[in-house]
C-alpha cells in the first residue's frame, strides 16, 4: 500500500481487556443483488457470501461480513495478505464491476480495524452501544452494524471474547480515546 499512515498505531492493555489497531488490512466493499453476483463472488474468493442477516463466512485468509441484503465486506485476516491486495481487488473488479454484476469498492483506507479481546469486551461495548449483545456474544462469526458512543461501527465477533471493530478513519482517533477511557473505568 502506498504511503499508508496508521491513524492510531497503538496497543493498550487493561485488566481483562486488550485493545490494538490492526493495520494495514485489505477491506473491500461488495454490492450486488442477483444470484449470479453471489455465485461469482463465491467462485473468485472460494467463500460464498452469507445471506443470513448479521452473519459472516470465511476461511483462513479472508472473512466476508453481511452488511445488508445486498452489501458485504471482505477483509483479510492478517497483514501479510496485503501482498495480494492488488490481485484480489483486480480479480473481483474484473469479474464483477466490469461486467456490471455489482460493484467492488476498496475501503481499505476508509475503515480502521481495531481488535478488542478479553473477558470484559462486551461490558466495554455496552457502556456506549444501544445493541443487545445477549445472543451476539455467544455466536461466533456474528456481525452487526451499530453505534458506539454515537459513532457508526461494524463489529465482527471473531471468536469468544475476541472481536474486530471497524470504524471510519476520521472517527477512529476519537473512538480510540473513548474506548480506552471506558476500558480504564471497567
Amino acid at each position: 500500500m502506498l504511503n499508508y499512515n496508521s491513524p492510531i498505531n497503538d496497543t493498550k492493555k487493561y485488566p481483562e481487556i486488550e485493545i490494538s489497531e490492526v493495520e494495514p488490512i485489505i477491506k473491500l466493499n461488495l454490492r450486488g443483488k442477483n444470484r449470479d453476483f453471489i455465485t461469482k463472488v463465491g467462485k473468485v474468493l472460494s467463500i460464498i457470501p452469507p445471506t443470513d442477516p448479521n452473519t459472516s463466512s470465511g476461511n483462513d485468509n479472508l472473512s466476508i461480513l453481511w452488511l445488508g441484503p445486498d452489501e458485504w465486506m471482505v477483509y483479510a485476516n492478517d497483514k501479510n495478505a496485503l501482498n495480494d491486495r492488488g490481485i484480489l481487488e483486480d480479480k473481483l473488479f474484473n469479474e464483477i464491476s466490469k461486467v456490471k454484476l455489482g460493484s467492488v469498492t476498496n475501503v481499505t483506507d476508509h475503515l480502521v480495524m481495531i481488535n478488542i479481546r478479553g473477558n470484559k469486551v462486551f461490558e466495554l461495548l455496552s457502556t456506549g452501544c444501544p445493541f443487545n449483545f445477549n445472543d451476539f456474544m455467544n455466536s461466533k462469526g456474528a456481525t452487526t452494524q451499530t453505534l458506539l458512543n454515537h459513532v457508526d461501527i461494524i463489529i465482527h465477533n471473531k471468536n469468544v471474547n475476541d472481536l474486530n471493530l471497524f470504524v471510519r478513519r476520521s472517527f477512529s482517533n476519537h473512538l480510540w480515546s473513548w474506548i480506552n477511557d471506558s476500558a480504564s473505568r471497567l
Partner: protein
Amino acid sequence: MFLINCPYCGERDQSEFSAGGEAHIVRPKQPTELSDDQWAEFLFMRKNIKGIQLERWNHAHGCRKWFNMVRDTSNDKIHAVYKMGEKPPIK
C-alpha cells in the same frame, strides 16, 4: 427504550433509525404539467395524523435500507413493518 424491528436486521434500538415521513406518496408522472399549487401539495403537504399512520423509515446506522412502518403516532405503538414496494398490511 423504543425498539424497531428492521425487516432486514431484526430488532434494534430507535437511535439507529431515522424517520423519513409519510409513506406511499406517489410522485406525479408529469411534474411540468402541474400548477404551483398542485406541486406544492405533493411536495410539502402531509396528513400528520394523530393515530395510525404509514411511514417511511431508514435503518441509517445499520443496513441503511429503507422500509415502511405502520405506527400509532399517539402512543408510538408499532403495528407492522414491511419492505419497500410491499402493500401495507393494515388499511
